[in-house]
């Protein structure tokens, strides 16, 4: 198990989501991925995608204009 950073800062929807999905492909079940996004739309949409496809949505926090969305790979 590890925590990986997926840096999607500066990109717009659906760029951060696509970067998350690419990173998930190269991760193990149980790994956590922390997406960094400066795009508010992605901060809303990524948890929705995670629930839709069945991974675990862990948390979202915002710090100085950067959203940190944490996802756990389940399958």
């Amino acid at each position, binding site marked *: 198990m590890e925590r990986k950073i997926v840096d999607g800062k500066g990109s717009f929807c659906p*760029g951060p989501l696509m970067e998350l*999905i690419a990173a998930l492909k190269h991760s193990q079940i149980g790994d956590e991925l922390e997406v960094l996004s400066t795009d508010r739309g992605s901060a809303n*949409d990524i948890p929705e995608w995670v629930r839709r*496809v069945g991974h675990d949505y862990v948390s979202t926090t915002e710090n100085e204009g950067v959203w940190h969305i944490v996802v756990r790979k389940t399958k």
Partner: protein
Amino acid sequence: MAGRKICVVVISGTLERLQAAAMLASVAAVSGQEVMVFLSMNALPHFIKGATAEAPHEGPMGDLMKARNVPEFKTLFEQAIELGGARLYPCSMAMDVLDIGSGQLEDYLGEATGLTRLLTEVQDGQVWTF
């Protein structure tokens, strides 16, 4: 969760419409939906290998997207294929009018497709037109 199949028909060559189509196709594909994209009319020339002409903007959103770091629509379509198994097909009529063969189009496009096949594909899916 797999959803219903969607068929994205792109006939416009403007940036806003290509971008919206690519966003829809890529997110649907990576969400487990079967996605097929049909490229025709002014959309198809953008998928000729080596095409450099910038997609014209319809309005201020096009200008803003260009100025900011919005993902390129062709990149999103490629991600739809690579990450979500989407299928993209060129319109056979548009290829005839442009006088181009499959070898001149981007390698990630499928075979030339006519309206009969398109109509068969859309029978069991939603259709989105851009």
